[in-house]
């Protein structure tokens, strides 16, 4: 069994609880991957890996409803670049649906590519998006034109976190407290002696294996998603963690600075594939990223990429 079956399972049920999802990962004998991106990820639970991949590729949304999951309706995310158009199938799948797609899009180039720990990547390619849209509409499947751009252009920039409500940071025994060292991009145990400069800091409080991230500004804290918090503190010191190769249209980023969920989803839509981990360079690589998408990413994360 693989992630295809997991997506079939999720599509058949429509929605469910987080616990139900974890059980399904076990029952369906979801295959393990053989490579970890980071030292931190050793022993990373398989169900988390499955969740993240389904979420990144826009198949299933988690925590949308009462800490559960719900499958996304089938959508073709269309990307136009360099005189060609590509439509990536996202969301729910079933055997009949796939059969219809194969049948109705016979005039187009249909690519079904297996991928580690992900459902097969199903793409339609043509020179123009018009033909793809026409064919897909006949199937009754939804379309999202210019999907990466549509997502990125609607994302608020990372510094908007500053307007989020302040919240009390955890204290007491049992909490492991670490601070992100922006120079070395590593987590270091936070000592009691606090820095007096006004620079915002990202703190990670871990208890029972569950991390909470807080941006500490002065004496107050803002609870934020971890990845957004990282780019927030990196923004303040103009630390570049992303690079872009125009020739290969690849966006590279260090694994610890993996982009936030929606940004990463937009980047994945460009090629239809999740990030590839290069073990030699120890970098995550996003492929087929147009320059304007990089610019939008740069805008959203406040990173100097180009």
């Amino acid at each position, binding site marked *: 069994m693989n992630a295809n079956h997991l997506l*079939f399972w999720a599509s*058949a049920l429509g929605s469910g609880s987080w616990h139900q999802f974890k059980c399904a990962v076990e029952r369906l004998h979801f295959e393990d991957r053989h490579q970890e991106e980071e030292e931190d990820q050793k022993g990373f639970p398989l169900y988390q890996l499955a969740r993240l991949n389904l979420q990144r590729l826009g198949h299933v949304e988690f925590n949308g409803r009462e800490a559960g999951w719900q499958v996304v309706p*089938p959508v073709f*995310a269309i990307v136009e670049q360099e005189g060609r158009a590509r439509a990536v199938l996202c969301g729910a799948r079933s055997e009949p649906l796939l059969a219809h797609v194969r049948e109705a899009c016979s005039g187009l180039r249909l690519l079904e590519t297996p991928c580690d720990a992900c459902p097969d990547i199903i793409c339609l390619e043509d020179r123009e998006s018009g033909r793809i849209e026409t064919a897909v509409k006949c199937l009754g499947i939804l379309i999202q034109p210019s999907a990466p751009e*549509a*997502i990125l252009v609607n994302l608020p920039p990372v510094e908007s976190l500053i307007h989020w409500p302040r919240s009390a940071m955890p204290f007491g025994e049992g909490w492991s407290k670490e601070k992100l060292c922006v120079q070395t991009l590593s987590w270091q145990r936070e000592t009691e002696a606090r820095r007096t400069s006004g620079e915002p800091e990202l703190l990670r409080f871990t208890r029972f294996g569950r991390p909470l991230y807080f941006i500490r500004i002065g004496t107050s804290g803002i609870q934020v998603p971890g990845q957004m918090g990282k780019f927030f503190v990196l923004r303040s010191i103009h630390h570049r963690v992303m690079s872009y190769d125009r020739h290969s249209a690849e966006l590279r980023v260090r694994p610890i600075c993996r982009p936030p969920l929606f940004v990463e989803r937009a980047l994945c839509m460009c090629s239809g594939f999740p990030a590839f981990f290069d073990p030699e360079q120890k970098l995550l690589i996003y492929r087929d990223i147009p320059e304007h998408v990089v610019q939008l990413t740069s805008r959203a994360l406040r990173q100097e990429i180009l």
Partner: protein
Amino acid sequence: MFWDWSALLLALVAVVGCATYLFLVKHRKQSQERRDVQLPSTDKKSSAKGETPAASATPQRAEPAEHASSEPCVGTGAEPLASNQQTCDIPETTETILLEEKPTHHPQEPTGHDDEKEFTKVSATGILDIGQEIIPSSVESHRESQIAGEPPDERPVGCTLESDAGSLAIHAEEGQPRADEAPSAKQFRKVETADVVDEEPRGADIPKHESEEGGLRGQRPVATTHAELVPEQLVTASRPEPQTEKVGASSEQETSAKGDLPETRRGEEVKEQDHTTAEPMAEEQAKASAGAIAPVRAPTADDGSAVGSEQKSDTAKKQTLVPMQAKAPKSRTHNAKPSKKKETRKQPSRTRAEESEEDKRLLAKVPETIEASEGHRPPRPPQPIRYRPPSQEPVTVPQPSRRRQPMQEVRQRSFDLTVRLLFQRSGHFRVGLLPQRGDDAPEEIALGPEGNSRTVAAVHDGYYEDVYPEDISTLLVDGISWEGRTESDVLGYWTLSGRDIYVLTTHNDLNGFAQATRLKIGREHIVLCRNSLLALVEPILHQVSCAGFIKLDESQGAPAGWTAIRGAQSERKVIQGIVPTNAMRVKTGPEILSILQPEPDLEIDLQGGIYLQQATWLHGFPPRICVSGDLQPEIKVFIDGNSAVVEDDGSFTNQGYDAVGEHTVSIPVANTSRTYRITEGEESWIPWDAHGLTCGQLCGPLLLSSEASATPRAVVVPTSNSVILGAEPGDIAYCPRIRGPRQVGCVTFHAVWAIPYDAFGCDKKTTTIRLLSARRLVKVQRRKVTGKEAARVIAWSAAILNASRKGLLVDTSDPHAPVLWKEYKSQARSLWRMLKK
């Protein structure tokens, strides 16, 4: 005259004789009455039931039960005075004993008893005083302890435990007689015998069942048993040591309960005792003082060795006596004094601390009866144990080590740790431990050895996620017992029995290969065994027809010193376990090899497929119907009543087995069946608002607008043309500024034109009006527009007119663009005029 005198003398003699006779009769009767309170059988019953006297006796009968045999004078609160008066008639012996003992105890020698001197003094003056002074407090304290259900606070240190002879002295002293009235040993013996054997209990004080259980009513099992076991020289000892009787109650009780000690026998013994003289009695007492009677007081040692064996060591005596000390009531405190004397004499260098140590040591050897009587025992964490195959000898659990007990009550639940092997894509594998999860267990727990626990989350209804300890190779051998807890509670202990061979098999609900009890015919397995046993395991696997297996060593993920054996790789499957096909019996080698004996029972397995819930599979992904066990060719498998055929992969199918609906698989020969359902999955998926973004909701890659009919889409335009116009007046969008040659705008309309944001400020030589997609203008109906809509219409018209006024050229890459632009310009002008009016 002579005759007169003779007659007178005879008459006098007769009178004296009668008086003597009457006195003896009277004394005997009184002795009998006094003995009613002693009831030694009560103690025996208690001990025979494995209960301490304090625990078994009710408050009403506690006094006779506790004080009967040892303290005749102080048996009941109301009677001691009369009893003492009776016993005061027959003294002497006690004093003799005490006087003999006195010199043995040096006055300066620390005894640990401040009132020891006083005791000696009191003993010499008479037991009536003792009874009056000591009885109330001791009895009262004992009563309190009984009511509270606890042993008395004050331990009778060195009581009967330390010196049996000391106890003898006490009993003799308390129970007996003064020298001036009946100094003869014969009389004393008669009294003793009568006290022990012949007196009748006062039935009102004794529940009927007690006398019945202890034997015949009126019998004194303890005394008779003692008499039987020590017929002659130790009669004295038989009465005065009730604690010994309790300890040795098992054999005594048995004797009396069987009723094999009839009255006649007792009478004979009495006769024998009557023939003894004072000198042997003194010798006996001397022996008793020297501890020679100790073996008698310990008639039933733990190991049930011969009762009364005088060869027994002092240590052995103490071992049997110590438990009674632990339960000895407070009322016996005063007994400790002489016994301490004896102990001091025998072992003068022994301090109280040493005695305490000795007590602790001996308490550790307390027989199970004592522990059993405690009722509630504090929970103890289990110790890792080694696995032994069930068909062999029973598991002997070693004594648990001392571990920290939680402050709160521990829910002493035990859960399993299951060994699981997961293959990875590269062919490597990992061996981990899968903690079992209880029904009401929390989602996350901290689990692991003390001080090194880790948090594990539930991954399944019945399991938490895998744990990969670094020293797993050792843990697999030695076994594991880990504490699992939440923030506040200890939930229980997760254990794994250590062994040298593990059989892992596929599991319906779990990924990889999980631990199983033994091999099963027809099912895939991985055998994980220590390298030292590999030479024994391989031949067995060959015999059960697991040919062509592959050994995986440490370089491929096996724990250090272990080897995983899996099946040969096939084209069909990358990872394949070994599949035994023959049943066989392992007759030689270590016991653990028996788990390699394949289990032949037939069982229907529904494997794989996409399981939805409650025995339901998704249509198109039915389960593989497999039968494990010794399936002979003549045995038929039926699906929905129709005979099934075997596929290449060993599964069973027939026509329609994967159709939507309910199906039943059955093997009539094995009287087993299973039911499953096939159902269609949901196909009606609708978009929903998952995440709120700036201009809509995001659901997967789909951007949803607040307008139901519109789908937001991004439009990529040159940086110079950052205003996007649609075909309908009012369709206008502005691209956010980003660095680079292109801008991206998000629109909910069909984008037609891209024009500069600041038409008047741009360079018209380089900037043009761009046609994004040719679309005819939407004719506007005359209607009233207000508010934002009007503002948008104005902005749309102004943008077109400003670009026109600047004289910007239309991009001619599309030949229809100039014409279309004129049409838009005309519409914008008319609208502008209309709105201006």
